[in-house]
């Protein structure tokens, strides 16, 4: 009898725990959405800020974020994919090199984003002389999402059954032909999902771009890789903490937060949809 009471309490506690967790996160979403929805308008999305950021839109920040993530994934996807191909298709599984690579990937994944920012500052901005620019910031971001891209690509490649490779080799194809014509096409959806997840992560990060490329205001859009860039997360951050007239720009803060949230959630959703579609369509 006592055991049953214990169980009721225990189950109750577990239910409450999940309820609390979900409600907090749900409330966060609800709060941002309800406060920000009113601000979103076509103008807000397509016009630059005016009057010292107290009015106007956030267009350059949106473009800036898009530029940053596009560059970041353009760098880390090829790097990450080829690394994954090496790890899955070529490396001898117990080699010291491979264990080193795996542990490097794992540790790279755990480095705090601010330390990436420090590295970006010391290496890309100062040492290589790229200055505070789109280039420095995207390079920093690309390093940060590299582990994500590699890990998901490895998973995608591993999920291609061995017997496809066998059949191809038995027909006289080389390993390279097999990888290019059979393995990669079959692993494609998984690889794309990983890239999209990386993009989502890069879009929301502030710390890595803090000293490497983000600015609060610039005239126009960046025209070269060496120009600085506005970005949504940084924009929100400055608006909310350093703007001279914080309460006046509160609506813009909500609007920016909502746009950023929608962007990131859309990206996650796309990745999830692709993963689901891929899994249901797969015939092996």
């Amino acid at each position: 009898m006592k055991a049953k009471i214990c169980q009721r309490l225990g189950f109750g506690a577990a239910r409450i725990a999940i309820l609390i967790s979900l409600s907090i996160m749900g409330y966060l979403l609800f709060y941002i959405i309800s406060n920000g929805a009113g601000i979103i308008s076509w103008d807000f999305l397509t016009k630059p800020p005016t009057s010292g950021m107290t009015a106007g839109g956030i267009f350059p920040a949106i473009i800036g974020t898009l530029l940053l993530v596009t560059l970041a994934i353009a760098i880390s996807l090829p790097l990450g994919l080829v690394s994954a191909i090496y790890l899955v298709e070529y490396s001898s599984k117990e080699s010291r090199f491979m264990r080193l690579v795996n542990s490097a990937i794992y540790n790279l994944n755990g480095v705090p984003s601010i330390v990436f920012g420090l590295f970006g500052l010391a290496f890309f901005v100062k040492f290589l002389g790229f200055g505070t620019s789109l280039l420095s910031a995207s390079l920093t971001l690309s390093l940060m999402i590299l582990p994500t891209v590699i890990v998901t690509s490895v998973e995608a490649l591993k999920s291609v059954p061995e017997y496809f490779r066998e059949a191809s080799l038995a027909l006289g194809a080389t390993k390279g032909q097999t990888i290019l014509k059979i393995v990669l096409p079959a692993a494609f959806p998984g690889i794309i999902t990983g890239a999209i997840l990386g993009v989502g992560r890069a879009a929301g990060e502030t710390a890595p771009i803090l000293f490497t490329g983000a600015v609060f205001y610039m005239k126009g859009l960046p025209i070269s890789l060496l120009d600085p860039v506005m970005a949504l997360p940084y924009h929100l951050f400055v608006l909310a903490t350093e703007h001279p007239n914080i309460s006046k720009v509160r609506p813009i803060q909500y609007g920016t937060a909502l746009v950023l949230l929608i962007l990131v959630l859309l990206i996650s959703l796309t990745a999830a949809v692709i993963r689901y579609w891929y899994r249901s369509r797969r015939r092996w």
Partner: protein
Amino acid sequence: MKIKLQTKNLNVWYSNVQIVRDFTIKIPEKRITAIIGPSGCGKSTFLKALNRMVELVPGAKVSGEVILDGKNVYDQDVDDTEIRWKIGMVFQKPNPFPKSIYENVAYGPRIHGIAEKERLKHLVEESLRKAALWEEVKDRLYISAFELSGGQQQRLCIARTLAVNPEVILMDEPCSALDPIATTKIEDLLFDLKNNYTIVIVTHNLQQAARVSDYTSFMYLGKLIEYGRTEEIFERPKNKQTQDYVMGRFG
């Protein structure tokens, strides 16, 4: 009787465990040679050693010779990918690529450099005909290969192998994953194929070996125990172990 393929003292180890022992055999051209024996005795490994597929297994070591038309396929200057299309392989479980029927058959010729559409189309049709599959799929060449039944998929794999114009076809228990009707269709196919190709088939189905093959070799624990014309092996085996096996007393 021309000998197409032969092995001399072939040994195969997987991570220091010896699987194939001192195997010496002469396989005649354009005949079907069956390899029978209890499961786990190394038949598949032996087959894989013939077309150097065994080299793809980590930890595999090979010694001895495999001689195709007078040349040892393991020689340094021999290209292993070339051997693999000359000696084709059909696997136990049908493994078509996740592509259309057409693309599956065209894959082989494509990687060997054939690109003209007309020539490819002709090759695909010819191979599907030789595999007795053309009539069943000619109107739906571009559907996914997975839409076919198990038996059809296996014939597709055979067509795929034929498309690269091999001289020898190795078959590793090709019917063990198929139902009896599909099995019969493939066995009938083999009778046609042997007019143009040398076939080596591994099977644990004694009746199949007796039905289909011209020559049979009995393998046990990695060694060649007895080899001869199929009728001899099944009706008048010289070795007691062979006799026990074909009588069904073990395996």
